[in-house]
Each structure stands twice: as structure tokens, then as C-alpha cells.
């Protein structure tokens, strides 16, 4: 190649690299909190956000720090933001939620959003990312926001779990004093660090199962039945092939006196050694579910879940189901009690609630006195 040709090629490569790096992030993120929002945006920073090219794709690393202020008159207990990139993955969306808040009127709080987008290099105009306020939960469990992701239900369930777990630790403090609380915290932290986690990949479209997964069989669910649960799971199965499980479906009976509009089950799996893992939550697929008292319904999903641990496939040999969340037609929610979780050693397999995770972190970083003071606030 001649010198001129080499120079032209280098110039072309340089220009390509420069174009790939030159994606202005200003104005490419749209924040929409909605009219009459109970929170206001008082600050926003895009920090060290940057873009880089990877082959024919453009990778955008967005690091945003938002500062929101409670402009309402009630204390805020949780916030959920819906994050959508319309140009990437048809139907793909995300959310960033902050549960276990306790923000008074006029107080501000930070929300961080760290995102990575991968998209073709052809850059179109308009925002790359839309951030919308999906839900704000108040102290009295009332909720505001677009609620397109059912954030109000999720935030309410988290708040009920937070109340339950704070009560649990306050009871220990009252009965066994600070040393008893310290012991309970250490046990909780130990449980979480010992809890086995699986890596799970969920595929929405029908996957092509290869012979590597082995023969498919229908694994019947066993059930943990909580006496105070409004629902009773009766029978169900999932298609299992090696480390892949698909099409779980479970029949449930509404044994309460109230109609139910949302059901979510927990799904545990076992490996060949008998070790149990939390596999997934199994929400009802019908968004218009209405289950009158005394009637049954099927909870099912048509996805495929593939389980690995430390990069190795984990073959599935057992399935256990339990009721983890119920919403009645009047909007009230039911979550398992602490006694339910401790029955059947579920507490060893399930992740701690967001509030227990927060209290653990508080104890580790600020000590027992700070934890005791925190519990006394409620």
C-alpha cells in the first residue's frame, strides 16, 4: 500500500473512532416525574458517563445521580422509577426502586441510576433513555405515580415485609436486650452469606432444547402450606430437562372469604445433593385475574429458566412451591409472617427482605447503638 493509501486508511480509522466516541449525552436522558408529582427533581449529574465502540455496536455507560425532594405532606417510604430505552431491545425496560425509605416532607434524597446500553452505531436523535416516576409509597401505604410496572403493589409488599422484620428485631430487643439483638443480627448476616444462590437465565421465547439437557420430564411440585395464607396451592408441575426448567404451572385455591386479584408463588429447586435454592418467583400471568372465594386458578408462565452455579450447570431434581404474595380485590396485600418463613427452614433459603438487608448493613457499618436508635424511630 502506498504512503497516501496508508495515511487515508489511518485517517478513516481515526475518524471512525472519533465518531464512535463522540456521542453527546447531554439531552439524551429525559426525566419525567409527571404532573402533580409528590417529588421534585432538584439536581441531576451525569458524572463520568461515557460511550465507546465495540465492533459495530456502541456501548453507552450512563451514570446518573438524581436528587429528589419530597414536596408532599406525608413521609415517603419508597420510590420506583421506570427506565426505558425504546431503541434497544423491543419491549425491554427496567426499573430502579428504593424501598425502606423514611423521607419527611421537604427532605431530599439521592437516587443513582447506572445503566449500560448497547446499540448499533447509527445514532438517531432524541433521548436514549426515558426515566419516569412509576410509584411513590407513603407512610400510610397510599401510593402515587403512573404505576405501569405495578410499582405500588411491589412497594407496598416491601413495606409490609419491612414492618414485619422491624417488629421481629424490636421484639428481640425488648425480650433479650442489645446482646440478643446483636446475636440475631449476626445470625441474619451469617444466613445471608451462607445462602446458596443460583445464576438463572430466563428466556422468553421458546428455546430450542438440545440433547445436552437430557430427557424432559414433568417434575411435580411439593408445597409448603402456611396456615394463615389466603391461598392453598394444591397441585402443579414444571417441565425439567437437566438444568433447564420451563412452563411451571400450579393450581391454587382461594380459601379466604375475599376475592383475590394477584397471586405470586415462590419456587424452590433442589440439586442432586438435596441442596435447596430459591429459583424464582412465579406470578400469575393473567393481569386481569379475579379469583372469588372458594374458587381455584392456575398460576403459570411460559418461560424457560436455565440454572448454573459458578459457570457449571446445576441439574434440577425437585421443586417446592409456596405462596409468597397475595393481593385482594380491595387492594390489601398479604405476605408471609416471620413464623411462616421460619417454619420449614425457608428463612435459610430465601433472601432477606430489603429492610433486613438495610438493618444488617446499618449494624455492620455503624454498630449496635445506631441499629437500636434506628429501630426506635418506628
Amino acid at each position: 500500500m502506498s504512503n497516501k493509501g496508508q495515511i487515508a486508511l489511518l485517517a478513516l480509522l481515526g475518524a471512525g473512532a472519533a465518531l464512535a466516541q463522540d456521542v453527546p449525552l447531554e439531552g439524551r436522558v429525559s426525566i419525567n416525574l409527571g404532573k402533580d408529582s409528590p417529588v421534585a427533581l432538584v439536581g441531576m449529574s451525569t458524572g463520568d458517563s461515557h460511550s465507546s465502540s465495540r465492533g459495530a455496536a456502541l456501548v453507552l455507560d450512563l451514570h446518573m445521580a438524581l436528587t429528589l425532594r419530597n414536596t408532599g405532606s406525608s413521609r415517603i417510604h419508597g420510590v420506583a422509577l421506570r427506565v426505558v430505552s425504546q431503541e434497544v431491545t423491543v419491549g425491554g425496560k427496567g426499573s430502579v426502586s428504593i424501598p425502606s425509605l423514611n423521607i419527611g416532607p421537604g427532605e431530599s434524597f439521592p437516587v443513582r441510576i447506572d445503566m449500560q446500553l448497547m446499540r448499533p452505531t447509527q445514532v438517531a436523535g432524541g433521548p436514549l433513555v426515558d426515566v419516569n416516576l412509576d410509584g411513590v409509597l407513603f407512610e400510610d401505604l397510599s401510593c402515587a405515580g403512573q404505576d405501569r410496572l405495578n410499582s405500588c403493589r411491589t412497594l407496598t409488599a416491601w413495606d409490609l415485609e419491612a414492618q414485619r422484620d422491624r417488629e421481629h428485631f424490636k421484639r428481640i430487643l425488648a425480650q433479650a436486650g442489645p446482646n440478643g439483638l446483636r446475636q440475631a443480627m449476626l445470625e441474619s448476616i451469617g444466613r445471608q452469606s451462607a445462602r446458596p444462590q443460583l445464576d438463572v437465565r430466563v428466556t422468553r421465547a421458546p428455546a430450542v432444547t438440545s440433547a445436552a439437557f437430557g430427557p424432559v420430564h414433568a417434575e411435580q411440585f411439593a408445597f409448603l402450606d402456611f396456615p394463615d395464607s389466603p391461598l392453598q396451592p394444591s397441585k402443579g408441575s414444571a417441565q425439567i430437562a437437566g438444568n433447564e426448567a420451563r412452563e411451571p404451572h400450579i393450581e391454587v385455591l382461594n380459601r379466604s372469604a375475599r376475592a383475590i386479584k394477584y397471586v405470586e408463588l415462590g419456587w424452590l429447586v433442589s440439586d442432586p445433593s438435596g441442596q435447596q435454592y430459591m429459583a424464582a418467583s412465579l406470578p400469575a400471568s393473567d393481569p386481569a385475574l379475579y379469583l372469588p372465594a372458594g374458587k381455584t386458578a392456575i398460576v403459570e408462565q411460559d418461560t424457560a429458566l436455565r440454572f448454573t452455579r459458578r459457570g457449571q450447570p446445576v441439574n434440577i431434581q425437585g421443586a417446592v412451591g409456596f405462596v409468597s404474595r397475595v393481593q385482594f380485590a380491595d387492594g390489601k396485600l398479604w405476605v408471609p409472617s416471620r413464623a411462616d418463613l421460619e417454619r420449614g427452614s425457608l428463612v435459610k433459603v430465601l433472601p432477606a427482605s430489603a429492610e433486613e438487608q438495610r438493618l444488617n448493613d446499618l449494624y455492620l457499618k455503624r454498630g449496635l447503638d445506631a441499629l437500636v436508635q434506628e429501630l426506635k424511630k418506628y
Partner: protein
Amino acid sequence: MKHPNPETLALHAGGDLGAMAGWRTRRHLARCAECREEVARFEQFRQLLPSLDDSQDVHWGRLAAEMKANIRLGLAAGECVRAEDPAGAGPIWSFARVGVALASVAALLAMGVVLDRPAPTVARETGVVVQATADGVQVREGGQSMGLMHSGTSRDAVTYQVGAQGSVEARYVDSETGYVTVNKVDVE
């Protein structure tokens, strides 16, 4: 890693590769997500094409008959011009012939051994995939993806929860804000 060219991947997607090339391609695909996605795209594209098979412009029956006639004609012409076989005059088991025969048998055996080994099977995925990544949760489809990251937090400090409807959430205590933060990605 050297990738098969697009033509090879397209032939593989259609099941049109020969045994050896097919085996080599399957071995590569077992290790290469990028090429698996390429094959998946070819397969999706093929699903759009069946209507072309019904093209009324090509008369396959007539074409086949013409090809058969041409082959017969060629064979007949070959018979007319074939000289007497000179090989019949020489020794049947010359060293060269024995060597070639043994080498062929050895090659055949080696090929049999290679082909008899269990070839890595390829699990192909199409559609939207939701999963946890090294430092976040991600939804992706084809070559595009969107992920919410938990930068600055070690993976061990993150609690992952999966929704069978197609969602993954990562819950952690943000080291900067001190708040429990839940990042979740899912499909519509």
C-alpha cells in the same frame, strides 16, 4: 478465535454443511456466542423465506428431466470414446496401490474415531433473554441490550431474584447513598 465466514454459518443454519465442516462449525458455536447469534439470525431469516419455495416461475420437474437426460448423454458419450483399460495389463497389487489403499483405510478409521466422539451440542436461544451479568442485570435481544448496573458493589453483596415471567432484579445497599436499591429488568 477465528470465526467461520458468514457463508459457512448460513449453510450451518440450513443444515447444508458437510459432516466435517458441520462438526467443525458446531465445535466453534459451542464456544462462541457471537456466531450463535449470527446462526440464530440466519434461522429467523430462513423462516421468512418458505414462500419463495412455492415460486411458480421455476418448473422443477422439467429442470430435473433435462438434467437427467444430459447426464445419460454424457455417460453414453463416455462409453463411445473410452479406450481399453490399460490397468488390466499391470500387476494388480503394486506397492503404490497397496500404499494408497492402506492410507485410505487409515484415513477412514481416523475419521470414524473423530466422528464417533460426542460432538458438543449447541443450545440455541432466540428471543429476549434476561439475566444477571458480572455487575448488573440485563435484558437483551439480538445484538442490542440494556442493563442496570450496581457499580461499586461487589457481586457477593448483591441479592438476585428472578421472576419466572421474565425478570431479574438485583438488590443491594448503595455504598454512596446508603439506601437499599433494587434494579430490575424485564420484558413486556
